[in-house]
């Protein structure tokens, strides 16, 4: 499988993966999360485990099991950690622990390194047998509900290290804390190369004309993604530049506010025939890929964001991206180099006009963006970082290590 990445990812990443594979050969690396399908973590683990095995590491992936009550509690914990208040009672925390205890009895937790993803399986640390235990937090922890964060911290402090996606998500917990950004898989359905026919097929399916520049934002219908602001920016651009706006996202069935926001967006778009609001069903990866490839300019005008990997997805397709200066977006967009960071509707409109009127600048930015993603946000870099972290923990006290 690793050979499929040759010529796509930096050669150095493949070299160091082999080198780390030799250093950690035959040693066991266990990943545990709470779902086998759906979500970015599962998506990456599906690809990561075979690659780890191929370079000589005995990698395993286990999934904890829980009932509806358990996942209702963990969803509340998740929301609270992202700053939305939820009441987590003592009973709920106890149930969270009990379900993990049952899983600990069922799972083989014996490994040289154990990476626990997110809060759902965090209590498993209480049942550690051996090896180095690392807690990997994929959540935006910049403004958590304090009581919930403090309770979870009781588990986290027992780990050997924690990993966060962005520096400002890290908490001072008295253990080693590392910053490892997430990544995209260049070979997945969402990111693989598409033929012109495949792109046209998607545009035809949604009746999108191909005769004018396309401005695109792919995101849930959520106020933090500022879809109304995107329409305002488009209207400001439209006075001078004829273009099409596509807002594409999945209907948020588990988010009652999603429907309200979608209705607001549809009302605000009114009957403008050049605004396309697309409700894509789950697993529309190929269509998203095609829309990103068909776009002239891609927006991610978020007001609040976790990491915002859709930015890297669009950059990987050579598109200039205009993003809100929030969350992980400034890590991906170097303002003026790989895209533009904006703070307002006016800023977004100005940058869209700039890019539509300077195709050369748009092309150069897109090329630089693609290179930047190649060097920083592909799956091989993330695997490399996890192995480097494990190796560094085996060689504590050194800030430079020669492999």
């Amino acid at each position: 499988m690793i050979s499929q990445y040759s010529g796509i990812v930096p050669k150095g990443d493949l070299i160091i993966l082999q080198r780390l594979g030799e250093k950690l050969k035959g040693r066991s690396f266990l990943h545990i999360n709470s779902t086998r399908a759906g979500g970015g973590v599962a998506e990456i683990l599906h690809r990561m485990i075979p690659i780890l095995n191929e370079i000589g590491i005995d990698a395993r992936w286990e999934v904890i099991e829980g009932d509806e009550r358990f996942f209702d509690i963990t969803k509340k914990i998740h929301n609270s950690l992202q700053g939305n208040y939820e009441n987590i009672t003592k009973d709920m925390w106890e149930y969270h622990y009990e379900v993990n205890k049952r899983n600990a009895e069922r799972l083989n937790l014996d490994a040289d390194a154990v990476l626990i993803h997110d809060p759902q399986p965090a209590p498993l640390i209480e049942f550690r047998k051996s090896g180095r235990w690392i807690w990997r937090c994929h959540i935006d922890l910049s403004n958590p509900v304090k009581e919930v964060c403090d309770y979870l911290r009781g588990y986290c402090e027992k780990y050997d290290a924690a990993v966060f996606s962005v520096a400002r998500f890290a908490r001072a917990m008295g253990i080693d804390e590392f910053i490892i950004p997430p990544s995209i898989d260049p070979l997945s359905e969402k990111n693989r190369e598409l033929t012109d026919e495949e792109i046209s097929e998607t545009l035809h399916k949604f009746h999108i004309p191909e005769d004018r520049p396309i401005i695109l934002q792919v995101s849930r219908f959520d106020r933090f993604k500022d879809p109304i602001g995107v329409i305002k920016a488009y209207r400001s651009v439209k006075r001078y530049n004829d273009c099409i706006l596509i807002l594409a996202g999945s209907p948020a069935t588990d988010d009652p506010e999603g429907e309200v926001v979608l209705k607001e967006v549809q009302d605000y778009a009114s009957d403008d025939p050049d605004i396309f609001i697309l409700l894509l069903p789950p697993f529309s990866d190929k269509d998203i890929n095609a829309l990103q490839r068909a776009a002239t300019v891609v927006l991610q005008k978020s007001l609040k964001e976790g990491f915002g990997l859709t930015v890297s997805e669009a950059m990987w397709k050579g598109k200039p991206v205009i993003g809100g200066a929030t969350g992980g977006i400034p890590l991906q967009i170097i303002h003026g180099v790989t895209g533009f960071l904006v703070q307002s509707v006016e800023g977004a409109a100005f940058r869209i006009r700039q890019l539509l009127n300077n195709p050369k600048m748009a092309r150069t930015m897109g090329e630089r963006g693609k290179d930047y993603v190649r060097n920083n946000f592909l799956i091989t870099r993330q695997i490399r970082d996890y192995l480097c972290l494990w190796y560094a923990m085996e060689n504590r006290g050194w800030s430079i290590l020669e492999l």
Partner: protein
Amino acid sequence: MIEPFEFKQCVSIIKSTGKKAKNLKELVEGISVVSDESIFHHTYQYFLKGHFLEYSNDFAQWVGESLEERALSEKLSNIDPFAFNDISILRKELINVIEDYLKEFPEPREAMPNDEFYFNETITFIYSAGVKVKNLAEFLIAIKYIEPSSIYYHFYEARVRLGGRMDDFSRWFEEALKKEELARKIRAIDPFMHSIEGIREHISKAVEEEVSKDMWEIIKL
């Protein structure tokens, strides 16, 4: 027998120090107490990032972009980390520049929430890029295709290892190939004024000229 040049490259993983600053006073406090690795990361390793040429270290960038203290940002950008043999002296210089500025402008603004400066440090891994060259012609091919982190390692990071203005490339040209003039040309490239790709172009051009010159001399013979 000429000692071959082995291209190495490096990657780093970022470690949070748990310290952050929301204004200049806290930035000075942070710079005073963080590890040498953290100062190293925010200054020397700035060149590893796809930076734009307005700044030359993370402190200057944060002061310029997040605090909008342009004058201080210019002063911080003008600090040459390679001019110091010791990180403790670089640390002192950073503190002096900020403290002098604070004497003149004692009440600067604070960063917006979530836009604070986060002090990090790195653990760096060095490994062979799998390319060894024995002469200038081979070097020329390699430098055109080698990865950016290899150029960073040999051109920037080497200055910390070797001290002063020395980089691995010019040292090999001078010591192994006895090409003093080429070594001087490479040392004359301003490390602050180019991206890594710019450095690659300058080195390629200088080496290409040298290779052509050597070929003409052979033809003349």
